[in-house]
């Protein structure tokens, strides 16, 4: 097992080095590039920790979507960056804060070493209680049956987040199309990529959702891939983002959570509890919820990236 440990040590060092880079480098843009690389490595770390579902989410969200969001922001903020240095805290204060942060990190490290051994776990309990849910992937079972409320609330949380993003729009622009994405590029390579990649991506996304019931994968991962493909098409200028006032868009955004709640409420009569599934129907219901949620989440994630509504024509700028 020594070479496995070498891999782990290399990964841990790389992750720490990149984190240090992200914190300490001067230009925000370089820090963001470092953060994208960091996300990539974290995906590998998750694989090393036997958390393949998490690795997929990290690869899709941490590297892909967060990367686009932050790279775009860094590019747009670059003109203002030089002014930041002047409001940096003084050296003494920084050193004091650094010392305290180090103390907290050391304390945490000590706590990590003092965690009980053998570790307490719910893995066994989940395994025992997986059959009634009808799914084979325990993570999916936990997300959609045992702790369905977290997943429900979490898909709901995305809606206020989206409203928060939309809320910074200028009043006259309300109702229009989101305007934060990079302008369409005329480069043929991008157009080609935006034509070739999405079919692959959509296939992978659907595969992830469909397979997520029994193998690693699931709606978040699938939805993220779909969102990324959609954004790619938008960046290439092949499609326009939908207007915020669009009624169909709004229905699609909330339909996932509403269906989830609807099935949950039906569970009160059919299975004696809110968010319970009637015996024997658990798996099809879970798959149905996942399918609709994937659609809503993919749209929401895409729109979170697309930013607040701007004046109707995207290249028209906003005043």
């Amino acid at each position: 097992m020594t070479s496995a440990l070498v891999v782990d040590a290399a990964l841990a060092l790389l992750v720490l080095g990149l984190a240090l880079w992200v914190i300490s480098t001067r230009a925000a843009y370089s820090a963001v590039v470092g953060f994208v690389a960091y996300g990539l490595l974290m995906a590998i770390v998750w694989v090393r920790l036997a958390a393949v579902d998490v690795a997929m989410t990290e690869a899709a969200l941490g590297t892909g979507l967060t990367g686009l969001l932050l790279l775009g922001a860094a590019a747009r903020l670059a003109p203002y960056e030089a002014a930041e240095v002047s409001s940096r805290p003084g050296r003494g204060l920084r050193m004091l804060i650094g010392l305290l942060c180090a103390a907290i990190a050391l304390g945490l490290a000590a706590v990590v070493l003092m965690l009980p051994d053998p570790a307490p776990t719910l893995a066994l309990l989940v395994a025992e209680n997986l059959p009634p849910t009808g799914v084979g992937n325990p993570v999916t079972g936990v997300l959609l049956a045992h702790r369905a409320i977290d997943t429900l609330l979490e898909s709901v949380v995305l809606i206020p987040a989206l409203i928060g993003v939309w809320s910074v729009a200028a009043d006259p622009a309300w109702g229009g199309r989101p305007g934060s994405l990079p302008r369409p590029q005329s480069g043929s390579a991008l157009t080609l990529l935006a034509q070739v990649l999405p079919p692959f991506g959509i296939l992978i996304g659907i595969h992830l959702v469909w397979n997520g019931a029994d193998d690693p994968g699931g709606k978040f991962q699938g939805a993220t891939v779909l969102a990324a493909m959609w954004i790619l098409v938008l960046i290439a200028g092949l499609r326009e983002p939908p207007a915020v006032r669009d009624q169909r868009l709004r229905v699609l955004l909330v339909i996932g959570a509403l269906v989830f709640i609807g099935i949950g409420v039906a569970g009160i009569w059919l299975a004696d509890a809110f968010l319970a599934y009637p015996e024997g129907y658990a798996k099809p219901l879970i798959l149905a919820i996942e399918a609709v949620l994937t659609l809503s989440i993919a749209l929401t994630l895409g729109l979170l990236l697309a930013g607040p509504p701007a004046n109707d024509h995207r290249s028209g700028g906003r005043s």
Partner: protein
Amino acid sequence: MNLALDILTIVAVSLGAIFFLAGTVGLLRFPDTLTRLHALTKADNLGLGLVVLGLLPQVSAPLAALGLLAVWLLALLSGATVGQLLAGTASAPDQDRAETPARHAGASHD
């Protein structure tokens, strides 16, 4: 037979690893962005291809083998596109304008 496949794996994976090394060296030693870009896209795509080739005999399920190939194809496709896009940026007529803020930021850091 098994031994032959294992040897194929070892050879291909080792070669792939060496290509990665070559790509890294190229990235570090070549003088400007454009040459680094060309060195990198060739080396890492070949490296990944060789690794995939080496791993193919080690997986039993045909679906897994397909997955491996798909990974490589995807990397090839995106590598080529991104390479072209980056090259377009680097060699655009108004390159100076494009690169100025970057250079400034980088220079002030070094």
